[in-house]
């Protein structure tokens, strides 16, 4: 642990351990949780954010996948992020628990990457699961929830904390809508009804590999101007 000048002895050292629950020193990174069902495009979105933001910002990624190296391999192979900026966490078959009820291992991974790279942006990808996921506010500052249209247009209507309470709902794979007969208008209406003022964006990561609307939202959270064209 070396985030700060190390003048202080004793319990001050421990205070860092309390994490985001209030007692720790202010940190400069924005921690963003990315949840959503398996295959909805979470890793593709992480890659998109790294592509779009990686030139201006220092980014690190924590994954919670079963195949600990798969996501890392994917991000590295695409030349998107170097391996030492990616950490994998095992969840003991409980992906929700690891980001919500017992965040110890994820917090440890996040803090280690923060200490090493002093990033602007930390992305925590949850292991895929159902619609009830929420990240602990002790682990992340805000959370995205990624669903896709391939499961039909009734997913937003089903609700669940992931759909209703996430800070940004991302409806991905809009390119598949005609193929599965999903009505994006219905999804937008249902999502708005379930979420009130919380924003919803639609993405097609095949056509827009920089995930424009999500990138703008993240820039906004980082307090950066969003009017310029994403590179």
């Amino acid at each position, binding site marked *: *642990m070396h985030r700060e000048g190390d003048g202080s*002895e*004793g*319990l001050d*050292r*421990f*205070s860092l*351990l*309390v*994490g985001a*629950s209030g*007692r720790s020193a202010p940190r400069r990174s924005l921690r963003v949780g990315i949840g959503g069902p398996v295959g909805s495009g979470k890793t593709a979105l992480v890659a998109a954010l790294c592509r779009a933001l990686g030139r201006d910002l220092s980014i690190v990624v924590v994954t919670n996948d*079963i*195949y*600990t*190296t798969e996501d890392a391999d994917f991000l590295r192979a695409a030349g998107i992020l170097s391996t030492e900026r990616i950490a994998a*966490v*095992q*969840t*003991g*078959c*409980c992906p929700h*628990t*690891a980001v919500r*009820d*017992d*965040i*110890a*291992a994820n*917090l*440890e991974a996040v803090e280690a990457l923060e200490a090493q790279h002093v990033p602007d942006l930390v992305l925590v990808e949850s292991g895929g699961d159902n619609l009830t996921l929420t990240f602990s506010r002790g682990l992340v500052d805000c959370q995205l929830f990624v669903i896709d249209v391939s499961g039909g247009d009734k997913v937003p209507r089903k609700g669940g904390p992931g759909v209703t309470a996430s800070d940004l709902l991302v409806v991905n794979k809009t390119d598949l809508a005609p193929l599965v007969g999903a009505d994006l208008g219905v999804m937008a209406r249902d999502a708005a009804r379930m979420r009130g003022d919380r924003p919803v964006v639609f993405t097609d990561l095949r056509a827009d590999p920089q995930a424009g609307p999500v990138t703008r939202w993240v820039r906004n959270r980082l307090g950066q101007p969003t009017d310029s064209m994403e590179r």
Partner: protein
Amino acid sequence: MGTVADSRVTANLLLFADSRLPAGGHAHSGGVERAVAAGAVRDMPTLEGFLRGRLATAGAQSAAIAAYACRSANDDPAPAFTCWHLLDAEVSARMSSPAQRSASRAQGRALLRVLVACWPDSVPVGLGDRPHHAVALGVGVGLAGGSPYAAALVAASASVSSPASAALRLMGFNPVEVTALIADLAEDIDRCAEAATHASDTGGPELLPSPTGLMLDVLAEDHARSEVKLFAS
């Protein structure tokens, strides 16, 4: 051996016996994931065998360490810095597998987060920031007002309940049957904790018992090397 059990159980003490304690335990299988992968744990009888073995080795060891750490935490005057360092070294020396040591420290650090949040002014600084799990557990039980026996009991009990829960998740065992199995082991857990309490009442940490389980070391090392894993250890 005289009785060391006491009836002073506080609500704080129960925190440490609760599997929902947010100290990272849910992601550690205590070797069971690899034992399942190797076919060594495949049904209830083989699970029972595994748990008995684990109680007699890793369980007995962590129970004695926890009891010792609990006693130290309640010592008056408080132990010097170096006493904690010495204990730490003795615990490391009792774990021949590097993977076991690192799993122990990962869980110890996670538990330390909880202790610091609960008792910000009382956690001994000599613990450092990556204590072994059994040490942090013993200190925590001490801070919660528990006795060395209570610390040993919590450690011994966790040494079987946590791999049992992991096995349940991996194999889809009937949860009620798994609980009945642990209830069946209860007398052995009690005895283990009592023996550990006595064994921990030594002059120094170098005299703590070291009933290592070779097979657990092998499983831990195998696990650390394996590509696909659901649990951290």
